[in-house]
């Protein structure tokens, strides 16, 4: 199944590991992500200021490319879709699509300007949805080679579990904002009490740790201009995850990953030893599905997750 795929800017630069692990796990599950032949930045939430149609050109172009890529591989009309991994790209594309759907005049105006005939039918999907709805958690669980285990709890026999919850890796799913909200336009999962990442974590054989800050904002791109704000927010998020016993935090957005990871970096003040590594869900999947270590992309993190997963690659 070839699914048109829009990586976005960040996944091509700072978050290459998200892109790589995402493509690898998709391939392992038989989902072929076909990168759009031509694409540019989605606009990163700015297209959503609806009083300026100029900004909407970027996402519309992407949707057009997805339509074209779909047609080229024999999927058109209702089958037309585009997959994304970055939560911000996902939010922009999903909501732009919704906007174009309810405002045909806007679509016409943009098509006129770009001289491209976007018909307005592409379905925007996040990989998480594809996993939940097209692959299914049970099918995913069957493909798991190692339920991720923390080092000291490893038993013999291929890293399998020794029964009971106590032996599993405790993974705290962190959703952030843009993956879920606004609910009316995104509709991926319950905006106040989501479970999609929890279900993924459990399908991978780990323990999903719920904690109250899992839908609180990380500060997003304030990290560029006013980094103290994301640092404060992220401190609370990580503290809450730790308070609930998390060993790893898992997320679906490169900015969230950065905002939770970077403030925990090594500074002159040294480290407390209580840092929690922050992974993309695709990285956790790559480990659990037994994919080669170069697909995991764990080298780039500020809090090094490698000690937690050391030795798992050997059991592939």
């Amino acid at each position, binding site marked *: 199944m070839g699914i048109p795929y829009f990586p976005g800017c960040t996944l091509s630069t700072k978050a290459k590991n998200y892109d790589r692990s995402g493509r690898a796990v998709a391939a392992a599950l038989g989902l072929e992500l076909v990168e759009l032949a031509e694409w540019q930045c989605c606009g990163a939430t700015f297209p959503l200021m609806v009083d300026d149609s100029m900004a909407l050109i970027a996402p519309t172009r992407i949707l057009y490319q997805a339509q074209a890529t779909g047609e080229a591989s024999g999927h058109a009309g209702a089958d037309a879709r585009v997959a994304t991994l970055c939560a911000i790209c996902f939010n922009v594309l999903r909501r732009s699509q919704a906007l174009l759907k309810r405002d045909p005049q806007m679509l016409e105006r943009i098509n006129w300007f770009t001289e491209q005939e976007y018909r307005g039918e592409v379905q925007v999907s996040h990989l998480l949805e594809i996993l939940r709805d097209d692959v299914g958690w049970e099918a995913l669980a069957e493909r798991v080679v190692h339920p991720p285990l923390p080092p000291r709890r490893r038993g013999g026999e291929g890293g399998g579990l020794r029964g009971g919850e*106590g032996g599993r890796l*405790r993974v705290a799913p962190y959703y952030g904002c843009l993956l879920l909200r606004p609910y009316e336009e995104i509709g991926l999962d319950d905006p*106040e*009490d989501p479970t999609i990442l929890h279900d993924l974590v459990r399908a991978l054989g780990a323990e999903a*740790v719920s*904690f*109250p800050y899992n*839908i609180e904002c990380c500060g997003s791109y304030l990290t560029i201009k006013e980094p103290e704000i994301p640092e404060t927010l992220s401190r609370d998020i990580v*503290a*809450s995850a*730790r*308070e*609930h*016993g998390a*060993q790893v935090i898992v997320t679906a957005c490169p900015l969230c990953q950065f905002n939770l990871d970077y403030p925990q970096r090594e500074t002159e003040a040294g480290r*407390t*030893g*209580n840092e929690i590594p922050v992974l993309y869900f695709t990285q956790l999947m790559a480990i659990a599905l037994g994919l080669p270590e170069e697909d995991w992309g764990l080298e780039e993190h500020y809090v090094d997750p490698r000690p937690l997963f050391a030795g798992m690659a050997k059991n592939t």
Partner: protein
Amino acid sequence: MNYRALVIGSGISGMQAALDIANSGFEVILVEKEPSIGGHMAQLSETFPTLDCSQCILTPRTVEVGQHPNIRLLTLSEVVSVTPLSAPGTGAGSGPSAPGTPAEAGRPPVGGGFRVRILRHPRYVVEGKCTACGDCAKVCPVVVSNEFDRGLAARRAIYIPHPQAVPALYRLDTTTCLGLFPLACGKCAEACQPHAIDYDMGPETIEEEVGAIIVATGYELYQADGHSERSEESAGYAYMSHPDVMDGLEFERLLSASGPTGGQVIRPSDRRVPKEVVFIQCAGSRNPEHGLPYCSKICCMYTAKHAILYKHRVPDGQVYVFYMDIRAGGKGYEEFVTRAMEEDDTVYIRGRVSKVFPFSPLAAPVSGASLPDDRHGKIMVWGVDTLTGNKVEIAADLVVVAAAMVPAEGSRRMAEMLGISVDEFGFYTPTNTEMSPVESPVPGVFLAGAGLGPQDIPETVAQASGAAAKVLALFLAARAEEMAEVE
């Protein structure tokens, strides 16, 4: 007509109505579904605005009810059917005609009334033999949550709801008892020296004819779905799921000198004294989008009361009250709230709360090294101060939620049984809100108390006496007519 009144519900409204009628020389059947009388007022610590001890002003009435020669008290009982009796001399048949209406111009009042069937659930304890000594409870192996203490304390399967209960009888709760036969347990019957425990009791249905009915079934607090992550819009402030987040009645039990902690305000989770307490008004009320649209009327007052009483017990504690408005319309009420705000060093914050959640999980997590965080064990309250425009975050030790008042369970069924009406929330509707507030649309059936809508104790007592007066008017007019016919 039978000059006997049926009063359904024995909270303060039912008791007051029953006493007024009984003291006028008429018989009253007082039906109560719980094992003892007094309603929610018996659970309160002190009442506003006087801060009188609630039990101290209530128990003289409960005792009077329990001992009154004209009151037949049926506890653990419920009304299961009500049939209007045909009015003799009208030829109107047995439909829901006008039983016992007072005289209209020229027309004599007609007789009538109701035939009621009352189901008496077995107590398994014999009235007249039980001395409330408590030997049975000492040997009962079952320990469950005590409803009277709103889950803050335990009781046995055989229990008395509280020491001042009327009737002063124990009661065996078969839903939690191990079994009513010696192979299962039988310890309580063995321990009972007066042999007051009878496992062979069964339910009993009795039938009575009464001339008038007063419905005084009262209220309950809205039990929100209580998902700990939900925002206030879902009317769940973690208060079903965390012991340190509670509603007003539970806090009353903490405050009560005869309550599970002897009046010490402590956190149920770790028994420590809370130093930062947050009160949230309008929780579930005044929320047309996601809760109940109406105002529950008493919360501003009882929250101020709670603030005052807490500060009396924990003088170095800090109180925060999140409010939208302050509704204090009764006699001395505004002054009472002002006292809480000014004299007791409370912080009133005008704004709503969006999230209440425990910072730490209830069960200690399996964890490695953990950085001490001074929010450990606290309940986080996120709200806003609309007068300054600032967001507010409070790490509270205890959170008390002023939950909405809703009609007691079963009010719709009761209304259907009696042929009276309820509004969309289940509160009874009188025949005319302004002019006949205690009369139902069905002649002979009257209404009193919080089953009509949220209200405080003085109003409730007044209404109860009002409803009683209506009943007495009915009876006296009918009796006068009867006597005139005889002559």
